[in-house]
């Protein structure tokens, strides 16, 4: 296992309305790993991501970073674009908030837009774009600050299968190129196995880890990987873990 980049120790989260999202949750995320969190809705996988991002306080536990002060970027499920701003202004936002000079920002924005293949749409508004393109803008906005850690909260959940596969491939290419540490939340087992070097299976009430599956296939992974026996074994292992976790407690 690579050096740990993010260490979550004994994290609990109780929301103000009394919902217990996580109890005693611990996880080591290695430098440069692509880690996916899968689990049924309500298992606290998005909460883990939010805690890592520093959005909202933990009720207990702590998170260690190595080195401290990593550059984070977050990609939300529904793209979360500003509808009143053009593609380039949306991508520029993090730089604008950081007070980056216009010239540096301009070239960074152009570069990020090129990385997600949206050249020609710089002046378009979000409502003129398809769901997949909106997601690309959202990814470009995350790239523009040159992050080291990328947190993605079910980014492709609302997309059709074809667009999802295409974006999966693109994200993997970018990951190989940029060497990020990625934490990826999804409820789609196949997507998790295809992308990840490691899949964490979670169960709900209370949110906890039930399995930690390493996906030993080498990168770069092609579409052929999706029909390999390793891929199928991993998918089966994860769905068994999920099924076992959901039978021992809680009504569905």
């Amino acid at each position, binding site marked *: 296992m690579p050096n740990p980049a993010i260490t979550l120790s004994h994290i609990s989260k109780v929301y103000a309305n009394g919902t217990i999202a996580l109890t005693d949750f611990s996880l080591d995320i290695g430098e440069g790993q692509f880690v996916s969190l899968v689990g049924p809705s309500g298992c606290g996988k998005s909460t883990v991501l939010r805690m890592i991002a520093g*959005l909202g306080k933990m009720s207990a536990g702590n998170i260690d970073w190595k080195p401290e002060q990593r550059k*984070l970027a977050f990609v939300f499920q529904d793209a979360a674009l*500003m509808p009143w701003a053009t593609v380039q202004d949306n991508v520029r*936002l993090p730089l604008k908030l950081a007070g980056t000079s216009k010239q540096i920002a301009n070239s960074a924005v152009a570069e990020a837009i090129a990385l997600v293949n949206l050249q020609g749409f710089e002046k378009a508004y979000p409502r003129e774009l398809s769901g997949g393109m909106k997601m690309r803008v959202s990814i470009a906005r995350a790239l523009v600050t040159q992050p080291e850690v990328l947190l993605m909260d079910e980014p492709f959940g609302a997309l059709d299968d074809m667009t999802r596969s295409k974006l999966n491939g693109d994200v993997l290419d970018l990951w190989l190129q940029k060497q990020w540490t990625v934490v990826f939340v999804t409820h789609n087992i196949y997507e998790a196995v295809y992308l990840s070097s490691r899949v964490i299976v979670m169960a709900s009430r209370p949110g906890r880890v039930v399995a930690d599956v390493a996906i030993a296939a080498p990168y770069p992974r092609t579409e052929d990987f999706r029909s390999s026996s390793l891929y199928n074994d991993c998918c089966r292992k994860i769905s068994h873990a999920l099924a076992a976790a959901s039978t021992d407690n809680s009504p569905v």
Partner: protein
Amino acid sequence: MNNRSKRFSMLRGSIRQILSPDLLAPLLVGILMLGVWEAGVRISGIPPYLLPGPVLVLQTLITDWGELFPSLLITLQITIVAFIAAVASGLLVAILFTQSKWIERSLFPYAVILQTTPIVAIAPLIIIWVRQAVPGEGSTFVSLVICAWIVAFFPILSNTVLGLNSADHNLLNLFQLYRSSRWQTLLYLRLPSALPYILGGLRISGGLALIGAVVAEFVAGTGGTQSGIAYQILISSFNLQIPRMFAALLMTTVLGVAIFAGLTLLSDILLKNWHESAVKQEN
């Protein structure tokens, strides 16, 4: 396409717009109603001091234009000053409210009280108070502006508060993640998110400012050189100059419609690129 044919197609476009059912249908209904009204008045022989026909109203409007129009301008002036004051104060107070839940909780009920107090009832009081504070010529103007402001203030306040609190939750998180300052979040996220709501508030308040000004003028009832259109309506009814009263009323209504149309246009221009209310969709 050369210039002439472009102009020609634009002309054709605007002709088509005028001939569109959206405009033609209400226009026809209006003309029909006016025709029935005129015919009814003529046939039944109702005296003009009870109900003047539209033709007589139009004639009066033309002959009395020299007296009525300056009065309308005074009312318009009161309306505009009160409207601008309402927009500025409404936005500022709304921004203040969203900075702290405690400020909002402790002050919002008083804003509601301001809204629900009937302006007719407190206008005399305001006029008396302002006369104490601002003696002389400007006194009436100031008190009328205050009355119109009271009526126009609340829709802007409540719509802006609603709008500022409607910013997308994920975007708020994103701003938080990039360590945006309070000021940046307000400027780049909350205010743009609130814009459609604010513009909705403006459309309501524009008309209300006019109504507030007219109502306050009725109560003030002052004559002299600085009297607005409501004073003309009042005096005309005292003197049984009913056609003149109708003419003044017509002018006030047209002004109200013009204010609404102007603010709708502003809203469409500001939102045309992104908001559903202003985007032309073809399905």
